[in-house]
């Protein structure tokens, strides 16, 4: 076997989920249908924010994040995990403080405000993950 290209591209969790759906993966309580690995990956991804994302919302996010000067890796983290608080944003964006200390024109600005602007945009564009099942609440 010859490797032509080690990395032909990166996929978001949503794209992988979509691909597995077209391959016939579905929620399977009996645990006997489908290729075992596909099923595990599919069920894992259903628990992430990717489960109710749409292609349009991701394109919209990429467009709207232009002014924030994020690296590809940061955008991937944000799309996959949809940060909702400043702490989330700091975990997902490398050197978050430094990146948000300048606005889209390159001028210095208040980083907390900029982080909040970014989070508001994320909240608006990417659908929130569905609330965890009631069973979780009962467990506590």
């Amino acid at each position: 076997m010859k490797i032509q290209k080690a990395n032909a591209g990166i996929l978001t969790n949503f794209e992988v989920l979509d691909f597995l759906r077209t391959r016939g993966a579905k929620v399977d309580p009996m645990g006997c249908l489908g290729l075992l690995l596909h099923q595990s990956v599919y069920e894992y991804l259903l628990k992430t924010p990717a489960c109710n994302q749409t292609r349009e919302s991701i394109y919209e996010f990429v467009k709207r994040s232009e002014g924030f000067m994020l690296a590809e890796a940061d955008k991937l983290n944000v799309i996959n995990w949809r940060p909702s608080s400043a702490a989330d944003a700091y975990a997902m964006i490398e050197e978050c403080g430094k990146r948000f200390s300048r606005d889209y024109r390159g001028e210095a600005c208040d980083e907390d405000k900029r982080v909040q602007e970014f989070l508001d945009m994320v909240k608006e564009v990417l659908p929130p993950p569905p609330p965890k099942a009631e069973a979780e609440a009962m467990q506590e």
Partner: protein
Amino acid sequence: MPPHLLSRPLPDAIKTELERLFLDKVIANLGLCVSVYDIRSIEGGSIHPGEGCSTYKVSFRLLMFKPFNGEVLVGRIIGYDDKGLQVSLDFFSDISIPGHLMQFGTVRGPDGRWMLKTEDGDELYLDLDDEIRFLVSSTKYPPIPIDQKEDDPPFAPMQIVGSIKGDGLGLLAWWAADEEEGRRRQSKSNSIVLL
């Protein structure tokens, strides 16, 4: 292409054979193969002397699980020992978070569990089954060992090392407070708000 598959349409048969070869297998430095993404071209179909199977040259793409350094992942704690935590993503379980990549101030408690002592004196335990958000620090592909003793742990061809040192990392319960849904989640030991 083994003879028993030759009655099927060629792309299907080839896809089945590729899945048999690669699905759920680790390729060094490329990650875990999750699926055959597509087949781009198929050439050939010659039969070599002395064989019953036909040989094809196939160009295809595989969908790999290979998180990059700096990627955020969320998993469940499935174990802990004196070196650190073991985390699982359900489909992949060879993830470790060593002690030196945990939040500053995390130590091993008297019962063996790892514990973070906050500035307020709260003791936050990292328990089995807790959901944990971590950053991928590195991925190792150790060579296959030649000999294995009886009680050695099963060989892991792909090992991810994670870090929870930093804002927003660690147990999800530590950071999930006053979200837009307006719910407050209790962590196993305390209810806390971390800024």
